[in-house]
């Protein structure tokens, strides 16, 4: 099956014309502008996404009404080379409280020149979510998550990154 052949990770590499320190700080400090805004677990409109730049830091969305929803934790913070954070959202784009059913994202920053940085992203252990989903598949139908994020497939962009 296609799924198995593709494994349980999503890997992306992108090269940016910026020094490694800047690339790292932009990702963490301007995370609000990077995270696609149509992805939030909040019930209200998203005010901002906050990435606390330290190990153990919280990653959360804040709504316009002040409500907050933490959906990740910083597991490794090693500027300017490496960043790892958890991904505590389930396939219905809701908070997963069982950490056994969460995945993680690692970013590695590699200086190709003093002004150019390669960023390697790996979102791994997706099968953990799969197990969680399998266990609740009877309830999948009642969730409205699917229709919400399916809209995103409508305008599939030609991938510029691999």
């Amino acid at each position, binding site marked *: *099956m*296609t*799924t198995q052949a*593709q494994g*349980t990770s*999503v890997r*992306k590499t*992108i090269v*940016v*014309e*910026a*020094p490694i320190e*800047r*690339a790292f700080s*932009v*990702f963490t400090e*301007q995370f609000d*502008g*990077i*995270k*696609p805004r149509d*992805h939030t677990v909040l019930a209200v409109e998203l005010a901002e996404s906050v990435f606390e730049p330290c190990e153990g830091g919280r990653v959360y969305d804040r709504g316009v009404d002040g409500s907050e929803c933490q959906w990740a934790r910083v597991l490794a913070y090693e500027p300017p080379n490496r960043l790892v954070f958890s991904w505590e959202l389930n*396939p219905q784009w809701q908070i997963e409280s069982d950490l056994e059913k969460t995945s993680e994202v690692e970013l590695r920053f590699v200086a190709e020149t003093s*002004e150019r*940085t390669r*960023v390697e*992203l790996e*979102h791994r252990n*997706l*099968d953990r*979510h*799969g197990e969680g*989903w*399998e266990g609740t*598949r009877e309830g*999948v*139908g*009642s*969730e409205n998550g*699917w*229709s919400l*994020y*399916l809209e*995103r*497939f*409508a305008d*599939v*962009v030609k*991938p*510029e*990154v691999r």
Partner: protein
Amino acid sequence: MTYRPNEWTALGDPTRRAIFARLAEQPRAVGELAGELPVSRPAVSQHLKVLKQAGLVVDRPVGNRRIYHVDPDGVGALRAQLDGFWIKALAAFKEAAEQTTEETQ
């Protein structure tokens, strides 16, 4: 090269998205889907075939019908949505990183 649809191309079609969304609500037979959508029964069957090849839906026989439901494995669909998420995020990241460089130079 053999054409093998992935989750992206499979869900790139609005009718297939509609079918998939309905199957996510609850398992259905071909006839039920055809009755709910402005699509003929053979067309629904063809769309289901693509969704099945992409690993997004599976079917099982119930009596003399086949009931289709979303693949409980889910990893394929999850991969597809995260794939799209990170493509968008990294494109925005590249723009931000390069813009910042220009501004400070």
